[in-house]
């Protein structure tokens, strides 16, 4: 998902220390873990990785949509897209500050993103070629994100759960504004409908990849599920996404680009084909169509903003010194 391949570390139940046992019992009772509570080192490390990856995805996720802010077809669409992208910046900030309660600083996380040591979701390494892509991204990408984020509101780590509550409140606008764009395009001229279909064709597979590898290849799930920092398996969520999305595509008069995608009455689910996993792992390795461009945009933003951050620091320092001197003079 936004955190697609989080390596988790952990101990088998039999080797748990008494503290670890007590910790696991708290989680099993549904208690929230708070920043200053005792926690296993591996829980902390795994969470930093997961929340960091999630935060990075929110931030890098602004780029494909930022691409269209200046080219939105109407002033209203532009205002909506701007508000949506601003929300994503906010989501990144909620998650960075939640991660900081675990003892890592935001700047450290930034450095790890910029050096490539930490990942973000593979979905943001695809280009957004037409205005219809803004529809597909909101509908499918935010839609897939919601699938994962709603259950995470019940995750065991308090600050993470609270950030998720805040994020989920805002996400539904994102998906709906995307679907509204798709509706408009699908009901437009044949060319516009064609653009909508093309956007769906290009984003379908990569949206399915957002849930991470198939359960049989997902080696770190069990530990994370015991800790309640992963609430569902990748395949469960992917199926749920397909089941909700296919009827929405039908409503638009569009077709998901998968002939094998049919309702299976016996299972009570849609059957569907796996996305191209080879492509997925290539994109994760950095070989997607936009990996280099996205990372460079982040690095540039960080480096080119450095003088400004330093300037504000210098101003704050001087103002504080002035206040201290005035206080001294008044004594």
């Amino acid at each position, binding site marked *: 998902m936004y955190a697609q391949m989080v390596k988790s570390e952990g101990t088998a139940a039999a080797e748990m220390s008494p503290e670890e046992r007590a910790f696991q019992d708290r989680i099993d009772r549904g208690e929230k873990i*708070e920043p*200053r*509570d*005792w926690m296993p080192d591996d829980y902390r490390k795994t969470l930093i990785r997961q929340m960091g990856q999630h935060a990075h995805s929110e931030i890098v996720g602004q780029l494909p949509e930022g691409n269209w802010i200046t080219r939105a077809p109407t002033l209203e669409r532009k205002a909506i897209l701007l*508000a949506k992208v*601003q*929300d994503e910046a*906010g989501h990144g*900030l*909620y998650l960075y*500050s*939640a991660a*900081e309660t675990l003892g890592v*600083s*935001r*700047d450290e996380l930034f450095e790890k993103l910029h050096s490539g040591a930490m990942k973000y979701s593979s979905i943001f390494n695809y280009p957004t070629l037409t205005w219809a892509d803004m529809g597909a991204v909101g509908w499918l990408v935010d839609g897939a994100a919601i699938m994962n984020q709603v259950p995470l509101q019940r995750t065991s780590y308090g600050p993470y759960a*609270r*950030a998720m509550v*805040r994020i989920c409140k*805002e996400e539904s606008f994102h998906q709906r504004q995307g679907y509204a764009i798709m509706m408009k395009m699908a009901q437009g001229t044949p060319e516009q409908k064609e653009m909508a279909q093309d956007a769906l064709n290009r984003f379908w597979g990569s949206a399915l990849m957002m849930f991470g590898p198939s359960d049989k290849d997902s080696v770190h799930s069990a530990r994370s599920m015991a800790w309640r920092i992963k609430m569902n398996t990748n395949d469960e969520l992917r199926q749920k996404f397909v089941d909700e999305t296919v009827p929405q595509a039908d409503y638009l008069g569009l077709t998901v680009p998968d002939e094998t995608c049919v309702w299976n009455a016996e299972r009570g689910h849609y059957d569907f084909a796996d996305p191209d996993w080879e492509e997925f792992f290539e994109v994760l390795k950095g070989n997607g169509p936009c990996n280099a461009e996205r990372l460079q945009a982040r690095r540039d933003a960080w480096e080119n903003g*450095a003088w400004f*951050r*330093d300037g*504000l*620091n210098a*101003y*704050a320092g001087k*103002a*504080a010194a002035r206040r201290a001197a005035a206080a001294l003079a008044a004594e």
Partner: protein
Amino acid sequence: MTRKEWPLWEVFIRGQHGLNHRHVGSLHAPDAGMAINNARDVYTRRNEGVSIWVVRSLDIAASSPSDKGPLFDPAESKVYRHPTFYDIPDDVGHM
């Protein structure tokens, strides 16, 4: 090159007139004025507040999780602090 990080601030928002300020999260800012500006953008994009407090995270003193027992357990046995402890006959009427 390592730069000085902006300090961390805790943000408290009064949701509506008449309610307490509530902790909503934290953010980085160089000074209090910028912290309030940033808090407005990060935490009140949808009319969530009518007033903002910010305080440097470093300035917050907190009880430690291990003090939970000594601090809060004594209250458990003081049931007589609750109105439901007292049986008042229905005949007395609303009290």
